[in-house]
């Protein structure tokens, strides 16, 4: 605490190409198919003609062992061999942490053009909740399901701030409205408050529409220095990385007596670091793709990211603040609510969306004249938070 970080990657990294698959039930495709599809999309966007020659290194976000271990998963999918390729795992922030590592390799001058990507193949394990809970963790210490973990925030917020299930429902309705317009979203259906309220319970008070779905997908970004970016396809509108921060807190917040459960320190810390690095405040953020794994998470995020004061997320939603035409559109893509959450892919998918929004070529709803876009991941038991701020080329 109190240590001032001198280093910065602000304006040193340019995103020159982005790609993503359609997210959803990709029964006929495996992880290699998905990854290759997203990467091909990104290469085409960037104007990469000879990947083996032009791409110096790869970082790939993957959470689950069954999606693939080691850098070999990405190397095999893309058929780039003999280069530095690394698998990155950091819970739901795996994809954005892959991007972070990729940024550092370019910023250090070691690599010129690198690929950051992420993929997860969840549906082969079944669609009812995240798999793996039998395999990892302590034999008997309780391990709640992901929705149950985030319910701890809901129960506390309900008790402390008087929020209701209907407040949560507004998040789902908003994101489904946005996602309805996005061709790559898993769910493209508008829903009502009543739909949300009447849906079957997953972890009280979170019902089916309060939870993001299991989904397959992949996303990829090609990054380089602003100088090299000038000779690629998006020379005129490449996007600059303004800041990138990651903060890791405990895997076991329920053993920490001071933990409030109405705010996540990991997000608060990562946001603070990112705003400092970018030299902006939360006010300057034009729009955000935030981690809405559950509706309650999005409400807590508004506060942790400094968009609004603690305890006011319900009011902000009622006022329309995070709507597409509101003060600060949140999840214009439809978020995890509509894309689902293939863990390793999500962080890269958010950066894909932010890049396209800043370039004015959003496939879904376009945010009006954005200057800064913020992407945020939150993973585990609120353990890992990652915040990236992107801005337009000067």
């Amino acid at each position, binding site marked *: 605490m109190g240590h001032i970080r001198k280093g910065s990657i602000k304006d040193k990294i340019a995103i020159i190409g982005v790609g993503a698959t359609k997210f959803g039930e990709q029964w006929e495709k495996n992880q290699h198919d998905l990854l290759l599809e997203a990467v091909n999309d990104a290469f085409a966007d960037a104007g990469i003609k000879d990947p083996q020659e032009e791409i110096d290194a790869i970082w790939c976000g993957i959470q689950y062992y069954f999606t693939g271990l080691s850098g070999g998963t990405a190397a095999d999918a893309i058929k780039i061999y003999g280069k530095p390729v690394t698998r990155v795992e950091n819970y739901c922030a795996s994809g954005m942490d892959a991007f972070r590592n990729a940024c550092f390799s370019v910023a250090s001058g070691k690599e010129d053009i690198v690929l950051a990507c992420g993929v997860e193949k969840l549906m082969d*394990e079944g669609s*009812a909740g995240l798999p793996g*809970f*039998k395999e990892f963790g302590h034999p008997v210490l309780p391990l709640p399901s992901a929705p149950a973990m985030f319910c701890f925030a809901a129960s506390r917020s*309900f008790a402390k701030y008087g929020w209701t299930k209907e407040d949560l429902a507004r998040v789902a309705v908003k994101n489904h409205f946005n996602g309805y317009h996005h061709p790559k979203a898993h769910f493209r259906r508008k829903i009502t408050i009543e739909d949300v309220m009447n849906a079957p319970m*997953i972890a009280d008070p979170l019902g089916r529409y309060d939870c993001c779905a299991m989904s397959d997908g992949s996303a990829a970004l090609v990054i380089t220095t602003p100088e090299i970016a000038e000779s690629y396809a998006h020379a005129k509108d490449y996007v600059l990385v303004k800041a990138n921060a990651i903060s890791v807190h405990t895997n076991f917040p329920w*053993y920490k*007596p001071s933990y409030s*459960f109405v705010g996540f320190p990991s997000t608060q810390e990562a946001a603070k670091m990112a705003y400092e690095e970018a030299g902006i405040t939360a006010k300057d953020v034009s729009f955000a793709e935030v981690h809405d794994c559950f509706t309650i998470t999005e409400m807590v995020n508004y506060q942790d990211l400094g968009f609004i004061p603690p305890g006011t997320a319900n009011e902000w939603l009622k006022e329309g603040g995070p709507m597409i035409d509101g003060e600060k559109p949140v999840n214009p893509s439809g978020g995890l609510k509509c894309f689902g959450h293939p863990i390793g892919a999500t962080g890269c998918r958010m950066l894909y969306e932010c890049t396209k929004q800043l370039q004015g070529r959003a496939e879904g709803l376009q945010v009006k004249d954005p200057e800064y876009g913020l992407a945020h991941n939150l993973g585990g038991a609120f353990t890992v938070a990652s915040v990236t701020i992107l801005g337009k080329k000067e």
Partner: protein
Amino acid sequence: MVGIRSYGVYVPKYKLPRKSIAEAWDFPKAPGNITISNQDEDSVTMAVAAAFEALETANIDPKEIDALYFCTTTPPYTEKQNATTIASVLALRDDCLTVDVTDTTRAASIALINAFDSISAGKMKNILIVAADKRYAEPISMYEYQYGDGAAALVVSSDDGIAKINGYHSVNYELVGPWRKEGDHHTQQFEIKVETKYGYINNTVKAIKGLMEKFELTPDMIKRAAYYCLDPRSYGRIAAALKLSNKALADNLFLDHGNTGTALAFQILIGAFEQKPSIKQDDNIIFANYGDGADAFYLQGTENLRAEVKKHTKLQKKLAKRQELPKYTDFLKYRYLIKTKDPFVRKSSNVTMWRDAKFLNQMMGFKCNKCGTVQYPLLMKNCIECGSQDITPMQLKRTGKVFTYSLDHLINCEYYQTPVPRCVVDLDGGGRLLLDMTDCNPYDTYVGMPVELTFRKIHEGGGFMNYYWKCKPAEGAVKPKSAEKEAK
């Protein structure tokens, strides 16, 4: 001098009315209930609950216990001692003698004989005996009317305590009465009339008569008689054969509770201690138990009995608080008598469970010497708040309040016995942890709810018994949902 110093009775949360069984199988109707334990309970976990009551009301440091006898016909392990699990949870001394007494409903009184002899000989001072059973009757048989679940514990000490033990008389008898072979799922019984006449009545009478002769007791001298009950009619016949007055007879618990196997005789005795009119100093008590023979004991009340009884929630009150299983299918589910989705099992390692035993079994946490935070578990040996490695291990309390919770319908991506209340609990005196709630209506959970910890079977991952704590609503904790608003 040997006496019973204190006692404990564990009555599980649920009861099944016998009429549910009658309706399920078109049997002749029978009155009353049988007590049913939850899915996460077995003889070890029920024994722990009874033992805690006995130790706490005895006001005895568990380190003063010289021997632990665990008596059951349903031990979770047949190779590997079960008493050591209980000793670990109770934090008994490592030179405390641990014994499993099994195979017969008489196990509890056999342990009492051993305890009496060890203490009489001056070899030991305090002995904990705990008896528990969770027996399965043959499905679609009227024996389903009989078997209840439960546990009882006695602390036997080298002073008079609440009732002094003057001596015993024991007889053995070979008869294949109720039996269960290696690998059998449920207890079998054949000609109950032979068992009743030549086994139960014959032996119980023989043991008590032998005892009365040994101590020159006449029926009119007996203030109270408490003995194992195979069925209420035969229970009365034994009293008649011994010419004991009906007034002296303890409640046999059969009607409302059922036959709790090895725990039953202790439970009937404890009921007798609590029964009105109160037992006075020097009142003569006959206590007997049956199973492959019978054991009879001559007890006398002491001046401490009435005060001791007041420390306890009475057995009858515990029975009154049980919750009824509305359907016979609930009973089948609670007993795993129907093939359902496989129970949730996590990967386990006996190495991990052994290494972590201190905090898993005994709720050991620590206090940070730098910032003062009391915390759990000892999984990591540095402070979760300030990172200091300067810590002092500390026994945490087994009561607390719900800080936040959720009702989890997803157990390992499967819908299985849900929702499970997942509770972040702040323990009284410090320490916070995550516990599943059991023995509850999940929808009663609220922020601020007082809870108590209960030792339960979690799963059988790794092929062995994985035990840990859960929480359950504390006495009087269940309130309407509106309490949630007050809690903030």
